[in-house]
């Protein structure tokens, strides 16, 4: 032992250990930064470490999958079930949200027009196949007090009129149809009267046409046309559409205008049927023809 302690080997070893301790102490004084040698080693070994680490992780992962496959499968099933339940809740929430929005609109209409009698909002069951005037069927019929010739509207504006009523569904003719005429007045001037009646050309663009307007009218682009209530078929003062383009009839005797309906009639999902209102003219055939 004494010989070893006195040997050169021991001295070299001790010096090396002292050198290492010195490095250690020096490293401590660097305050978190690695020594230049360490940085060099790290840089050199980085790609190897990256590859080896990836391989090790893969192997570990495979081992983990093999070892815990049952647990993962069970967890997966539970999560799937949870997702299913959450999706169901979400669908219910969306449905409730839509319903709430519709009821809110209904409340707004009822607040603005207390004389209107409106049953629950009606869902659009489907559009009539290949109809250029976009008539559609709703899920309310005479069981819900809907009669023929009841105005159909959205919160934004008038849409059409019921023409064929079954027990739980009704066919609605829209304001794009040439078979429906609505007497209207300009909301801003309250003096320019006209008739809104669909045409083939305007219906192709989802619009309708205002005709029989006086040549000396003061209607301008963007004005809102509202129902005049003269016919007794539609309530007074309900928005129908806005003026898109003004013009003069071919005969030159009256002015006309392209009207953009307040709501997009080609893509409706929910509407309101106004079953009664002040000034409604009861049509005898609407009641007597009930099944």
């Amino acid at each position, binding site marked *: 032992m004494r010989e070893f302690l006195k040997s050169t080997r021991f001295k070299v070893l001790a010096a090396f250990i002292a050198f290492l301790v010195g490095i250690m102490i020096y490293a401590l004084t660097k305050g978190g930064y690695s020594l230049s040698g360490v940085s060099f080693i790290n840089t050199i070994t980085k790609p190897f470490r990256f590859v080896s680490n990836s391989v090790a992780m893969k192997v570990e992962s495979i081992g983990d999958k093999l070892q815990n496959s049952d647990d993962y499968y069970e967890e997966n099933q539970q999560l799937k079930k949870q997702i299913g339940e959450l999706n169901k809740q979400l669908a219910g929430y969306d449905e409730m949200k839509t319903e709430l929005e519709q009821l809110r609109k209904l409340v707004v209409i009822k607040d603005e027009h207390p004389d209107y009698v409106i049953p629950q909002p009606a869902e659009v069951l489907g*559009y009539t*196949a290949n109809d250029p005037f976009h008539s559609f069927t709703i899920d309310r019929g005479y069981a819900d007090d809907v009669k023929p010739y009841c105005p159909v509207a959205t919160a934004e504006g008038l849409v059409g009129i019921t023409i064929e009523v079954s027990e739980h569904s009704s066919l609605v003719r829209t304001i794009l149809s040439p078979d429906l005429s609505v007497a209207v007045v300009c909301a801003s001037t309250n003096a320019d009267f006209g008739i809104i009646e669909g*045409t*083939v050309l305007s219906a192709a663009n989802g619009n309708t046409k205002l005709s029989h307007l006086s040549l000396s009218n003061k209607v301008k682009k963007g004005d809102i046309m509202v129902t005049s209530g003269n016919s007794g078929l539609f309530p007074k003062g309900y928005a129908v559409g806005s003026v898109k383009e003004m013009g003069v009839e071919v005969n030159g005797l009256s002015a006309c205008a392209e009207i953009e309906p307040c709501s997009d009639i080609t893509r409706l999902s929910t509407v309101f049927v106004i079953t009664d209102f002040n000034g409604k003219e009861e049509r005898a055939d609407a009641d007597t023809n009930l099944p």
Partner: protein
Amino acid sequence: MRIRTSRERRILRFKTVTRWILYYVLILFSFALMTSGTFLKPVLLLPLALAISIGNDLMGSAFTGAFCGMLIDIACGRLFGYNAVLLTIFCVGISLAFDLYLRSRFINYLWVTAVVSYIQCWLDYTFYYGIWNYEDVELIYRNTTLKVWVYTVISSVFIYLLVKLINHFLMPRAHLTIEEAIKTTN
């Protein structure tokens, strides 16, 4: 007259019932397609009713024509019964024509469907738009009626294949007695 065994009769009944069930499933599916969406659609029920009429008996064809016609009336918002009457007449006529004069070939079915669907589309246009003299009414003929007719004829190819497939598996084949076979060869 060939005497059928009770097993043959059972199979025949089963095949007939299954065939008609499949026809009506197809009819209801076509109706559902016709009533969905806002774009222009082929009158699927028309080529379907015609395809069913080919190779089936008169009463079945008439009833199917009437049923499909009623569904077209509902889907297209037409006077209830209008298309039913039309299709009953067409289906009976086509059932008779294919029974007596025409061979059950795709090409025959195609031209018959093209003619019948054109008549149906033209009558529809005339009665519902043409005679009312709407402004620019010819646009409806050009942009709606003709397109619907073309779509209907194109769709008839697929409908024919579907009905043919059903018939291939479920339509009972005519068995000839020895006497009938001898008569036929003579």
